């Protein structure tokens, strides 16, 4: 776990200020309200409020989470040029919910001094943020959807980072009887008949993968799937809903393993080559959007494919689950990923 910085000094200043404001504003019984000295109360009140508002408006960087300078005893490889500043990383809920970014982002910040604002949305939303220049870097997992953004030049410097795979999970009772089934299309057809199925419905990479699976099985998810519901929420929330509703759903393996303890869901189908889940990192086009933090974003993408980071990815929660949650893929092409 990243250590929590003690943030008291900054925050207590506010509380002390607030307390003084409240006290000065309270009524003191027995004073004549028309006596001049009572004017001190309102003056102090107004002054403090103004001060407070001013401090909010121009107080320094208000993000208290990260400290670029580390004074911990853990030996940190000195980096020649700390970059500093902050950047927005638009990414998927799976990297967030599995806890991978909680491990990687502090390492990146330690090395570069760059504070990362991780916005966990679906891949579709992340790509849109990139297309509008609302983010600096992306970490997404829907290669087919990423392509048009790359072709239009909105995303540059793309690198394949890692992969894991999607799995179908369902209630232990397995009403569709697909556990042990080796044919993906047959499994999807069985789920469509038996239901219920919970979909992300949020235009995320996982949602796109789900729609592809229905399409490959020639099933219309809107009409031909019994009790299909969309949550419109992240992977964690969707798994919780599926677990409670005794429903099937599709999930990336990492999020499922991370949450397995709180779920009443088993893996019912896995291992099909079309269910690879490939993560890539991109820099948002800094020539098109001058506000994009080019230095920070490029450093982040470089960090994600650096050998040391790739080792951390491979080891992430491996001891805990007896298997890797993510497999590093730096330097591979889309065709090479997932093949020995």
């Amino acid at each position: 776990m990243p250590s929590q910085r003690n943030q008291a000094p900054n925050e207590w200043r506010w509380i002390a200020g607030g307390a003084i404001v409240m006290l000065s504003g309270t009524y003191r019984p027995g004073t004549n309200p028309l006596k001049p000295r009572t004017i001190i109360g309102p003056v102090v009140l107004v002054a403090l409020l103004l001060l407070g508002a001013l401090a909010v408006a121009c107080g320094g960087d208000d993000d208290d989470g990260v400290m670029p300078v580390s004074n911990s005893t853990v030996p940190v490889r000195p980096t020649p040029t700390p970059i500093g500043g902050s950047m927005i990383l638009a990414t998927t809920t799976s990297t967030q919910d599995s806890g991978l970014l909680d491990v990687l982002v502090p390492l990146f910040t330690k090395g570069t001094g760059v504070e990362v604002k991780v916005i966990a949305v679906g891949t579709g939303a992340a790509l849109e943020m990139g297309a509008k220049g609302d983010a600096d870097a992306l970490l997404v997992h829907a290669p087919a959807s990423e392509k048009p953004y790359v072709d239009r030049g909105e995303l540059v410097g793309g690198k394949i980072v890692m992969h894991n795979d999607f799995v179908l999970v369902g209630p232990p009772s397995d009403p569709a009887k697909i556990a042990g089934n080796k044919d993906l299309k047959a499994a999807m057809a069985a789920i469509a008949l038996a239901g219920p199925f919970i979909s992300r419905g949020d235009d995320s990479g996982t949602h796109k993968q789900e729609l592809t699976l229905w399409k490959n099985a020639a099933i219309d998810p809107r009409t031909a799937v019994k009790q299909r519901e969309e949550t419109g929420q992240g992977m964690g929330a969707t798994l919780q809903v599926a677990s409670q509703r005794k429903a099937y759903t599709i999930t990336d393996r990492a999020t499922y393993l991370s949450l397995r303890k709180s779920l009443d869901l088993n893996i019912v189908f896995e291992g099909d080559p079309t269910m690879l889940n490939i993560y890539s990192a991109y820099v948002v086009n800094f020539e098109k959007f001058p506000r994009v933090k080019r230095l920070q974003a490029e450093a982040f993408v470089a960090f994600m494919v650096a050998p040391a980071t790739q080792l951390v990815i491979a080891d992430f929660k491996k001891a805990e689950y007896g298997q890797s949650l993510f497999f590093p893929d730096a330097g591979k092409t889309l065709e090479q990923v997932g093949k020995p």
Partner: protein
Amino acid sequence: MEALWDGLREALRLIAHGDATLRAVALRTLVVSGVATLIAAFVGIPVGYWLARGRFRGRTLVLGLVNTGMGMPPVVVGLVVWLMLVRSGPFGDFELVYTKRGMVIAQVIIATPLVAGFAAAAFQSLPSELPDLLATLGASKFRTLWLLGREARIGLLVAFMAGFGGAISEVGASMVVGGNLQNSTRVLTTAIVTETSRGKNDVAIAYGIVLLAIAFAVNLIFTTLQQRSR
């Protein structure tokens, strides 16, 4: 049912332990909503006075708008503020999106109509000849507002508490504008959403207890002030 008790026990253990993350999130929540409420009071109380005492065309219309604003869905406020603050939006250069300052802006917009609406009601309940009387005694305009405010203090404290309640309990705007960043913009309400979706119900319950405790403590302080000054 068992899960609930387990969650509750674990939650109490976390609170008793003074879990660092829990403390940081609670403190942050108090600061963001506290600052937002102070600003909302600073804006909302004069507006409430103006609405209660002003004589201008369309006063009823404005009052109606403010009263509608008292029930404004926070997530709509969040969406609009996000669109304004995001880089491609009109105020993108200020880089306020995904910061506590951005959250304060959204919460001020949520809390101000609450404060203004209750303040207007409080000022309207005062005898209508009071301002003229004070003017006769030689009080300035600002002083008149201050003295009337003291007369209406019980109602104004209600306004303040309503504003604080609106700010600290909303989740939609904080989620959209703040981005729920673990170490800088995660507040108690958004933390509850996160932990619930992660299946960590015990932690979510702990956050919920702390949120209720803060709301109760703040309101207790103000209710005490209110009742003492009766």
